[in-house]
C-alpha cells in the first residue's frame, strides 16, 4: 500500500463533507417518500419521521379524488418526451451527417450558424412562439411541443463532434460502390455506428423534455392535456392546501419514474455529463 501523503485529519474532513452532501441530496426525498405514507394528522404532529405509516392508499385516494390525474399526466408527458426525443436525435444526427460527410459550399457557414444559435434562450422568444401557435390553432396540440425539437443546435454540435472522431468515411464510400443510396446508408450504416452518442443524447433530451414546465404551461390549457410538471404545479393550489399527505404522495409519484430511470442509467448519465453533452 502506497503511503498516503495527506494527513489523516484532512481525509476525515473530505469524507465528512462528502457524507454531509450525500445526506443533503437524499434527505428531502426521503422525507417526501416517508410522508407520502403518513396521514395529514401524523404529519401535523411531527413533520419529520423515518418510520413509514399505513396511509399510502388513502393519500392516493385523496390525491386522485381531486384534479390530480397521475396516469394521464404520465401518458401525456410520455408522448411529448418520446416524440421530441425521437425527432431530436434522428434529425440532429442527420444534420450532423450533412455537416461531416458531404462537402458543399455552405457547409462551413451553416456550422458557424449552428454555433451562433446555440445560445438563443428559449424563454425570451416564448411570446412570439405562443402567438404563432395560437394563430395556427395548435395550442393543446402536442405536436407544437414535439416538432420544434427537430432543430436542436446543441445536439447537432455534439453529434458532429462524435461523428468526426468515430465515423470512418471509407465505410460510406464502399457502401456507395455496393450501390447503396445515400438515404439507405444513413439509416442502416451510420445510425447503428452512432448508437452510443444517440443513447447519451436521448437520455438528456428525454429528461429535459419531461421536466419542462414553461412551454407546456403556456400552450396546454385543457386539463386532459396536462403534463406531469403542470400536474405537480396543481399541488400548489388551494384544493390541496391542508392535504399534506396527498401532496407528498403526488410529488413522490412524479419523482418515481425519474428515480428508476436515473438509477438504471446513472453510469451513462454521469459519463454523458462528463462529455459535456448537456445544456446547462
Amino acid at each position, binding site marked *: 500500500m502506497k503511503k*498516503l*501523503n*495527506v494527513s489523516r485529519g484532512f481525509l476525515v474532513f*473530505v*469524507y465528512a463533507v462528502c457524507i454531509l*452532501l450525500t445526506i443533503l*441530496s*437524499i434527505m*428531502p*426525498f426521503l422525507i*417526501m417518500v416517508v410522508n407520502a405514507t403518513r396521514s395529514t394528522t401524523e404529519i401535523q*404532529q*411531527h*413533520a*419529520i419521521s423515518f418510520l413509514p405509516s399505513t396511509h399510502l392508499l388513502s393519500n392516493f385516494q385523496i390525491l386522485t379524488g381531486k384534479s390530480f390525474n397521475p396516469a394521464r399526466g404520465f401518458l401525456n408527458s410520455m408522448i411529448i418526451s418520446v416524440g421530441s426525443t425521437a425527432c431530436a436525435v434522428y*434529425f*440532429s444526427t442527420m*444534420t450532423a451527417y*450533412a455537416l461531416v*460527410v*458531404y*462537402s*458543399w*459550399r*455552405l457547409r462551413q457557414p*451553416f456550422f458557424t450558424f449552428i454555433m451562433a444559435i446555440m*445560445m438563443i*434562450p*428559449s*424563454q*425570451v*422568444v*416564448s*411570446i*412570439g*412562439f405562443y*402567438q*404563432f401557435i395560437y394563430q395556427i390553432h395548435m395550442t393543446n396540440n402536442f405536436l407544437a411541443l414535439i416538432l420544434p425539437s*427537430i*432543430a436542436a443546435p446543441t445536439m447537432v454540435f455534439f453529434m458532429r463532434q462524435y461523428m468526426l472522431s468515430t465515423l470512418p468515411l471509407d465505410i460510406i464510400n464502399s457502401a456507395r460502390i455496393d450501390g447503396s443510396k*445515400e438515404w439507405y446508408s444513413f439509416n442502416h450504416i451510420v445510425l447503428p455506428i452512432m448508437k452510443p452518442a444517440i443513447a447519451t443524447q436521448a437520455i438528456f433530451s428525454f429528461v429535459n423534455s*419531461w*421536466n419542462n*414546465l414553461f412551454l407546456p404551461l*403556456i400552450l396546454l390549457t385543457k386539463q386532459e392535456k396536462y403534463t406531469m410538471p403542470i400536474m*405537480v*404545479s396543481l*399541488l400548489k393550489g388551494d384544493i390541496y392546501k391542508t392535504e*399534506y399527505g396527498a*401532496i*407528498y404522495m403526488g*410529488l413522490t409519484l*412524479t*419523482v418515481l419514474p*425519474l428515480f428508476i430511470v436515473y438509477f438504471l442509467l*446513472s453510469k451513462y448519465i*454521469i459519463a454523458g*455529463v*462528463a462529455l459535456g453533452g448537456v445544456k*446547462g
Partner: protein
Amino acid sequence: MKKKNKLSYAKYGYLFSIPFVVTFCIFTLYPVIYTVIIGFTDLKGIGMTKFHFLENPFQNFQQILSAPTFQTALGNTFLMWGMNFLPQILLALVLAAWFSGTLFKVKGQGFFKVVFYMPNIITAATVAILFGALFGYPMGPMNDLVTRFGICDAPYEFMRNKGWARGVVAFIQFWMWYGYTMIVLISGILGMSPEWFEAAEIDGASGWQKFLYITLPNLRTILIYTLVTSLIGGLQMFDIPKLLVNKSGPNNATLTTSVFIYNQAFEGSYMYNRASAASMIMFVIIAILSAVVFFLMRDKSEVAERKELKRVERERRKALRAEGRNS
C-alpha cells in the same frame, strides 16, 4: 473524375440539412421576429391576435424599464443567481480537486458522483413544491426540526421573510447544479496531461500549489463555459421561483424576470406587448453579458504564446529546409 464524383454528392449536404433549417425557420426564427414586432405594438388581451404599431414605438420598452416591478425582478434574478453560483462553483472546484487528485483516492467516488448529480434530473417543479412543503408553516419538516431542537419556540413562517425566501430559491439552484458543475470540472481536470502534475511534483510543489498554478489556469475555458451557461440558465429561472412561494413572496422578493414576463403575458391583463418588450430586454442583457464574459476571460498570454509558438515553428522549418539544402 474524383472532383466530379464529389460534386454529385454535394446536393445531399443540402438535402439532409433541410429538416433542421425549415424547423428552425418556423419554430425559432419566425417567433423571434414576431416577438420583436409585438414589442412595438399594442397587442394585449386574451385571445387577441390583431395589433397596431404604437405611435411611440419604444413606449413598451420605456414602460418596462421604468416599472419598479421589472427593476425588482431584474435585481432579484441577479442576486439569486449570484447567491447560488458563487458557492456552487467553489464547492464544485473543491470536490473536483479531491475526486481527480493524485495525492489520495476518495473511496466510493462513483457513488458520491451519482448522489450529488441526482437532484439535477428531478423535475424542477417538483423540487420547488417539495421545498415549499419542507419549509411549510406552521407544520413543515423544517419547523418540526427547529421547534424540536429548541432553536425557536414557535414555528417560523420562513416564506414570509424576504431573506429566507430568496435564500431557499438560491439554495435549490445550488443544490440542483453543483453536482453537474463538479462532473464537468472533473472531466476537465482528467483531460490535462499527467506529465504537468508529475513535473510539478518533482519540483516539490504542494497539492495546493499544483491546484493553484496548474489545475486552475487550465480550467479557464471550462470555467467560462460553466459561467456563461449558468448565467443564461439563471437569467431564465422560472419553475422554482414561480412555484416555491405564492405570489413571489413578500414584496416580490423572489420575482424573477421570467416570472415577470409570464405574469405580464399570461395572467391579469394579458399584455403580450409589454411581455415581448421585457423579453427583448432580457435577450439583449444575456447577449451583452455573454460577450463581456468571453472578452474578460479571454486569455491574452495564451494568444501571445500561440503566436510565439508559430514563429518558433516557422523558424525551425526554415532551418530544417536550409539544412536539407546544405547536405
